[in-house]
């Protein structure tokens, strides 16, 4: 891979760092979504059991696959995968609004919200050599 998902997230953060006008906000969300999409695709491929579902296009298909994980996965892994689907779906919607709905205001808060979502996706979906890293529950640690 010549461009890692993390590089796309870095690009999103760079745009965020110098974002001034609405078109900048929209551009940052676009990069944040694609970074997250590729990150989640890697996460999904690393699952020990896959649920290959259909969707209208690769984006919908990936969200569906995360939203309906294989029942063979552990309860914890299913819950984490389903929660991840909520975040990716949310970001997918934000990206659709950013890129296509130019008549509706897209403000700074929406960009910040989307970047936080993307960062969280990266934090909870790390993989090493094709296997998903275990993330201890933050509440269990407390």
């Amino acid at each position: 891979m010549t461009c890692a998902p993390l590089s796309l997230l870095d690009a999103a953060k760079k745009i965020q760092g110098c974002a001034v006008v609405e078109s900048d906000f929209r551009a940052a969300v676009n990069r944040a979504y694609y970074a997250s999409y590729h990150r989640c695709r890697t996460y999904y491929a690393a699952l020990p059991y896959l649920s290959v579902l259909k969707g209208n296009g690769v984006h919908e298909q990936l969200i569906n696959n995360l939203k309906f994980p294989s029942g063979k996965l552990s309860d914890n892994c299913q819950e984490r995968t389903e929660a991840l689907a909520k975040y990716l779906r949310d970001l997918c919607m934000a990206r659709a609004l950013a890129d296509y709905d130019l008549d509706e205001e897209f403000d700074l808060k929406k960009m910040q919200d989307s970047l936080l979502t993307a960062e969280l996706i990266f934090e909870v979906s790390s993989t090493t050599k094709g296997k998903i890293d275990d993330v201890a529950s933050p509440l269990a640690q407390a």
Partner: protein
Amino acid sequence: MKLVPQTRSSELTDKLNSVLHRAIFADRNSFEMRALKRECEQVRDVDPAVGWGLLGSYNGLLGDIEEAARCYKASLALANNPIVHLNYYAAMGNLGYFSMAHDYFLEVSKPELGNLSSLISNAESMGSFQTIVQRVEQAEAMNLQPKLQLNGSFLKAVRVLRKVDLSDEFVVRHLDAVGDVLREAKMFADGDMEVDACDIDGVFVGVTCIFRVDGTALEVFELNQQLAKAERVRSIEKHLAFDVMFKPAA
């Protein structure tokens, strides 16, 4: 918009609201709550309809929906007060019983009953999307009340839900799972539920209901995992065009 119970006894109402704004269930054994209960009971001795209503709100703050319902029903049996209907409805939402709240809204929001305008702002945050629009249309057709304004993002969500053929009952079943998670954490459902809607054919068509909660991003992710578990326990039917999630409060 906040799901804040409103009563006629303003001083006591302010005290009850200040407990509600702490966002977590109150402890019935605390000095403050025991004192509040006594004050509610004193009001009940003078004005039973108002007093029972206050006791309903008091029990709602403890997270006790059964006792809250008993008190509100006792109040409504004495006087059919729209404010008590609103408080009862708000308590169901605060405690995350959204299907119960939707059924109640269906029952008491008929335009001819005179409760619609007081319930409507709460209802926008409690999942009764299409029912609200139907009720407003009915009220306008009957010339029963002035035109009620519904906000733009709410109406967009209604359009999308109709387009993808998802009912209010489908929506509130999802919200009930949110209620399960919040009650487990002894947290009130924030009445500021956000609604995001997107209607771009071929790209994305869907609605998301968002509940803002205090906590770090990872703690909120943990709540979303618990939400996924609650959805599975309830065997909730999932659909790409609709979802609910927690997000960190700003």
